[in-house]
């Protein structure tokens, strides 16, 4: 799934990480991975200890069971051995349970920590940065990336540590019976690793070749589902169906050819683990028949040879578990890169930043705003009306000169992009105003003409869908206005009458002028009729011209 999302994002995560591109051999861990590793460290230590304890107990169970069986067949059932085996089994299960839970808990801690980091980054980001983020990817990513990164930082990390410790433990157990057999296993390992390396590079080159050949076809299904209305509107359904079938097929066979090589990885481990059992069984058998006299394989008790035979597969088990984490690793790395690109890495300055610097002079001059009255910021589009308005509200800029807003109880924003909660119109108007009685809500809604809106029947009980998707821009502005009328805060309005039909625009203008009698109303607008109502006008065109003249 993650892969699909990433493919749809057109490989931005990897492309946005220059150090990785410059040095593919040793990618510098991004902020996400650093944070995740930091969060994982304390939990990992105890999880690793539990894993080691479980591996030892499992070896103990297998060894004791082998001893019990061996002695039993030799005619001597030892009940204390059985008891010991059962005890170690129970202990192993309990430690396993605790260990698994410790891993799950550590993963949760990492995922939650990452979410918290994202939250902090979002809280601190400027609106320009946030609006520049691909919203859908951000939302889909927050549901999936933290877990994927936690899988890498905890699951994969543990598996790779156990890759070093697990075989060592198994070999040590075998040494107790026959160091020659243990040596045989250890000698086998480098051969296996050579195979691993060979196949690993084959997988990588295969995957790259496939990416090159079929990368474009990776997310075709998702893309066509997304585009369904467009396809239907243009009568392209039959053609797209045929194309999709062919492309899915091509992509599937491409994937299959990579999988065929990738499964060799697990195949090698299976091969060595099966082979070791077969070879050991035959050698140990020959030793029992006294047909060979290799030290360490001959003159063993039955329980000893059973012990070696049963422990040998445990030597290979950590390799298999590590190979199974291959996916977790790939997904985790991709998710970490994506999170870095999305939120956590610092981004360069955006154009808005420059505009902010340009308006700094103006803002300084503007630092004295009146306590009441309508003030209009005017100027041609692109002259920085909205930027100045944001600046005066102290949004998202470190350069922000703090105007005398601190003396006021705060600001109510009024524009087409205000937040509207899901629920009823009454909820939307009352939002952020604390508890307030229905009469006040009715009064405010009536003042901005929301009660007799044919498109929003049922008055205060009119239903508003999630994200206010059933509201028009005019309705949103008026909801913002009604909200502002209830509160006694200053009103900052960004193009409140743009894109409204004349009747709506008139209502909004009148309400703003009315509100300005008791408080500061600051509007950024290109609506002449609104600017005419203002007691004071800041013309950015004039300001900019003067600045330009000064510079010349």
């Amino acid at each position, binding site marked *: 799934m993650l892969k699909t999302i990433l493919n749809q994002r057109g490989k931005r995560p990897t492309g946005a990480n220059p150090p990785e591109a410059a040095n593919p051999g040793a990618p510098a861990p991004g902020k996400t991975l650093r944070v995740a590793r930091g969060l994982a460290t304390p939990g990992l230590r105890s999880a690793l200890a539990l894993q080691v304890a479980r591996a030892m107990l499992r070896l103990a169970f297998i060894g004791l069971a082998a001893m019990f069986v061996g002695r039993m067949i030799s005619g001597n059932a030892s009940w204390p051995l059985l008891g010991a085996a059962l005890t170690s089994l129970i202990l192993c299960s309990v430690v396993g349970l605790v260990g698994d839970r410790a891993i799950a808990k550590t993963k949760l801690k990492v995922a939650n920590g990452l979410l918290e980091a994202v939250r902090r980054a979002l809280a601190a980001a400027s609106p320009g940065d946030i609006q520049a983020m691909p919203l859908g990817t951000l939302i889909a990513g927050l549901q999936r990336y933290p877990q994927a990164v936690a899988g890498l930082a905890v699951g994969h990390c543990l598996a790779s540590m156990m890759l070093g410790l697990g075989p060592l433990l198994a070999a040590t157990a075998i040494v107790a019976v026959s160091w020659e057999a243990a040596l045989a296993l250890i000698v086998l390992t480098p051969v296996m690793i050579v195979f691993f390396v060979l196949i690993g590079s084959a997988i990588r080159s295969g995957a790259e070749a496939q990416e090159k050949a079929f990368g474009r076809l990776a997310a075709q299904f998702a893309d066509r589902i997304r585009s369904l*209305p*467009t396809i239907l509107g243009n009568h392209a359904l039959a053609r797209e169906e045929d194309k999709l079938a062919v492309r899915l097929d091509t992509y599937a066979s491409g994937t299959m050819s990579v999988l065929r090589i990738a499964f060799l990885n697990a195949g090698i481990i299976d091969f060595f683990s099966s082979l070791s059992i*077969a070879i050991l069984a035959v050698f140990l058998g020959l030793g029992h028949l006294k047909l060979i006299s290799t030290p360490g394989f001959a003159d063993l008790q039955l329980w000893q040879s059973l012990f070696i035979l049963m422990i040998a597969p445990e030597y290979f088990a950590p390799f298999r578990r590590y190979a199974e984490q291959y996916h977790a690793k790939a997904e985790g790395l991709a998710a970490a890169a994506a999170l870095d690109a999305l939120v956590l890495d610092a981004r360069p300055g955006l154009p808005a930043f420059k505009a902010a610097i340009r308006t700094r002079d103006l803002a300084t001059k503007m630092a004295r705003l009146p306590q009441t009255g309508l003030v209009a910021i005017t100027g041609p589009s692109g002259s920085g009306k909205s930027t100045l308005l944001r600046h005066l509200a102290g949004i998202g800029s470190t350069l922000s000169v703090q105007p005398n807003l601190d003396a006021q109880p705060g600001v109510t924003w009024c524009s087409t992009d205000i*937040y509207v909660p899901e629920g009823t119109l009454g909820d939307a108007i009352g939002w952020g105003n604390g508890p307030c009685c229905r009469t006040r809500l009715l009064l405010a809604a009536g003042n901005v003409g929301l009660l007799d809106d*044919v498109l929003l029947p049922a008055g205060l009980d009119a239903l508003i869908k999630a994200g206010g998707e059933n509201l028009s821009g005019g309705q949103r502005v008026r909801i913002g206005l009604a909200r502002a009328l209830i509160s006694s805060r200053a009103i900052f309005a960004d193009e409140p009458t743009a894109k409204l039909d004349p009747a*709506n625009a008139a209502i909004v203008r009148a309400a703003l002028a009315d509100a300005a009698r008791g408080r500061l109303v600051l509007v950024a607008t290109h609506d002449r009729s609104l600017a005419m109502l203002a007691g004071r006008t800041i013309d950015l065109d004039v300001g900019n011209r003067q600045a330009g003249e000064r510079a010349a």
Partner: protein
Amino acid sequence: MNESASPKVTERARNRAPWRLALVMAFAALAGSILLTGASVWFLGAVALAGLTPAAMTFNFHIPAALIRLFALTRTAAKYGERVVGHRAALTDQVLRRSTLFATMAAAPAVRRAGWQLGNQDRLADYLDDVEDVDYARLRVGLPSVTLGVAIALLVVATSWLIPLAIVPILLLIAVNTVGARFLARRAKSDLAAIRESRQTASRLLGAAVQAVVPLQGERRWDPMLNEPFEGHANAQARALVLRHRQTLFDMLANCLAPCAMLSVLVCAWLSGLRGEALLVPALLAFSWLAVGESVLGASKIVVAFARETAARAALAKWTVNADGLSRDHFRKHISSLTLDGLPRHAPDGRLIGRPLSATFHASRTTVLHGASGCGKTSLLKQIAGWLDAGDECVLGDGIGLGADARRSMSCFCPHDATILADTVRENLFAPHASDDELWRALTTVELQDRIGAAGGLDGWITQDMLSLGEAQRLNLARAWLSDMPIVLLDEPTEHLAAEQGKRILDALLHRLRERIVILSSHDELTPKGSAAVRLQ
């Protein structure tokens, strides 16, 4: 969808073969590993007992040794084969399923209603998760559970035949595990539903907050607004941890099954008075149980994958309720007038608005729908396009009634949020029969020739991300330019375009479509030359 039923059946039949092969491979792999362990133990026991007597010299070890090697190779090869064949079968299934799913989704009414939800990246991601859960269900649930079930059943039979006494504890263990699995499946279902619910709520809240970031920051409410969505995510994580804890508990139970069965078999064999050589067969059986235990390791994953599959199927089925296909019965190449006779109008949310609309649109005269946003312009266009089922009997073409089906097959509808397909420019223009020359003329009309030339010409690959909103809109208009439908409906055609450019392109487009019935909607007072206007209240 009756006509497509028969090919689906044959596809099903064809695709059964790889699954059968995968099942055979899975059985071979499991049998290989059971026999490898069992036979090795039996062999060691036999030679150890023989080694104590003069029989050692005559013991034929060649056959058992060869068998052990055979089992080892079978196990390795069959496991590899199982993985490859199983994945191939799953991928073949996936291709078939997704092709069919795409066709079914296309017939879903939700596609034509207001706001295509799967156009949102996050909803799409959820949907794809569901599709994937169903795609791989056979590989993750069906195959392993069948193999495991059969292996356990065989071992139970063997045990009850050889050591009847041991069957009691084993059945008890199996019963406990079954109860555990059922409990986990039930809990997993509700846990997964709760996780999905709180994630979706969190996503919705976050989406709404991000869209209102400027006002929220201005009002100093941005930081507290982030609390709720992130708490939702944290709750989902906590619930996932609960599920994970249940999984570990079940895994513990399942992992004990095989070792306990093994010890029971051995102890019961001993208690039944079997000694020496007679213990070798029970030992083989006992270690076979242990070998099966290797395959039980991921038992909780199978149960959860099953729960996911069930939930995913239910979620996918919701999309295709009341699916209706498109028939091409009443297609007419040309009509000169389209009349609405008292068409009841609907708002985007399905509510009736205003008085029923009566109007006539002529082929030689473009009609512009005016009205404030939210007054149902898009909905009216969709009604005319036959996308919304309403007022079927009120629409007449050249005086003859036109049903929704007929209108759908006769109209080119350009939604204002039209998407760019990840494909070549040529495919994106949806005009398979047009010549290259014509395609370039269309691109030139919408002033995209340089942009497309730079992106690799008609066969250059483009995606949504590569084009700006304005460029995407212009490509969308090129599609309308190339369309040969008698009715062309344009929803906000100049959105995202600079006023001058929008006017230029629209005039050229309307000139090209002058013989056709063209209706366009516009919220700013757009009035192309020689057009009629209808104002919606």
